[in-house]
């Protein structure tokens, strides 16, 4: 909450992504660059990830961010979060 945009790391976002995927196996093998769709994320669990990220960082994804590409990896999501928080403060 009230996250500092500079402090948000890809690894931190990966942790939130994994918390949004409680039924997933082998999450310890995921890295920030892992393809989440290839790892088994579907449209349902994608929304769980979105909800977890929005809750953790107290943000709302604008519609233009709701694309499969943004949610391809934790690193991409982290970039989006930083952009949203940067836009809010800047």
């Amino acid at each position, binding site marked *: 909450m009230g996250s500092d945009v500079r402090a948000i790391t890809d690894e931190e976002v990966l942790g939130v992504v994994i918390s949004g995927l409680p039924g997933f196996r082998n999450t310890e093998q995921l890295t920030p660059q892992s393809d989440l769709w290839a790892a088994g994320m*579907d449209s349902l669990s994608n929304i769980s990830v979105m909800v977890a990220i929005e809750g953790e960082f107290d943000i709302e994804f604008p519609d233009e961010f*709701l694309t*499969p590409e943004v949610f391809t990896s934790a690193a991409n999501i982290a970039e989006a979060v930083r952009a949203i928080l940067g836009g809010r403060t800047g």
Partner: protein
Amino acid sequence: MVADRRADIPFEAWGGADPQYGRLTCGQRFIWDIIADLAPNDEHLNSELLLDVPGGTELEVVLRSVRALVERHASLRTLYTVDEEGEPVQQAHARGTIPVAVIDTEEDAERVAEETARASAGERFCLDAELPVRFSVVTQEGAPRVLVLVLSHIVVDIWGLRLLVEQTGRLLEGQHPDDVLPADPWQPLDQLAYEESPAGRRKLERAHRFLRESLADVPAGPFPDSARVRPQPNRYWMGELLSQAPDKAARLLARHLGVSASSVLIAVAAITLHRLCGVTEFGFSLRTLNRYDARTQTAVGHYSQELPLVLRRLDRELPDIAGEVQRSAVSMLRCPYYWPPEMRRIREEAVPPARSNATINYIGKPGGGPAEAEDIPAAELLADAGNARFRWLFEHSEEKIQFLLSSHPRSLSCLVDTAFLPPELAERYLRTVQDSLVDLALSAVHGH
């Protein structure tokens, strides 16, 4: 069915000694309002679960399983009343007894269990006076054969039902409750506390904002007045196409198009309404599971609600419409909780008032998202479609909606207002949705 005897099992709540009170959660209030609207004829909303008891299991193990479920899941020991202001409230009891009917039979235990379930589910729940779940055990020569649960819809949506099936099955196998049941399950009053927290309130406000924008744009009922015909004496009919083909084809197409199976099903349902019934714009409510918050995924409770969607220009191709459904659904499902009385107010304030006359309910295969969809051979799809069997389930004189389409892994069902979809057209509608899905899947995925 008369029970031979009744076992009263004492329970003591997991993690708390005092009863807990609160207003209803958004999901509970949603189903409470539906039950209240239908009362006193709401018993068809009750759910039945029949679980085979493994051979050699003692009755004591079955009763211990029942007790463990009730102690761990607060929704199974919650009563509902109305306060002085007419608002429904819940009270999760910490102690009490669970009445379990024990029926010993020399006849076929499965059949007796089915009759027991049907008789029990045929009686409406007094939600202010009895536990919202009824247990019966069918035994033969004292050995338990089938455990029957009948649940009020306020206790479970389809997600909660699946959790109960899985957990009860493992308990009946003799597994220890601590190995089966979540140590700290998310309870209805946890959900209420979240909804009343600053973060939860922000989400609610966002959902209501979304509803105000969406409901300003919802067309009146799905059917044009020109389609009106003389209705049947019992105006509302529910029919079911028993077939796995629609769900399998939707999942295959979903993977091919990169969208969800529900988006495919909704798109084909809308296109078929356009082609068969002259519907030009389709406004409907999409029933959503609301289990996107990971904490809620261990919860036995009712979280499901409905969100509005409108599809226009139904003469477009499937990928175009399914993609639109997918984008709209992803956008709205981020804030799916809303307070039903507020939703009603927003509906009434819309110009013209936004009536909800159509609903789609997609219940997919557990764990069956596009990423997990197995390859389904063309021959299997064709065989499933060829074996499809249609039947009418019931007729009602009163309903709140004109059209309800439900998709399950093994069936596609439809509640219709026969003033707009006469019975023969309703059957043709379900068969056309199935055949369209299969044709599209064979063409897109199998190159036929």
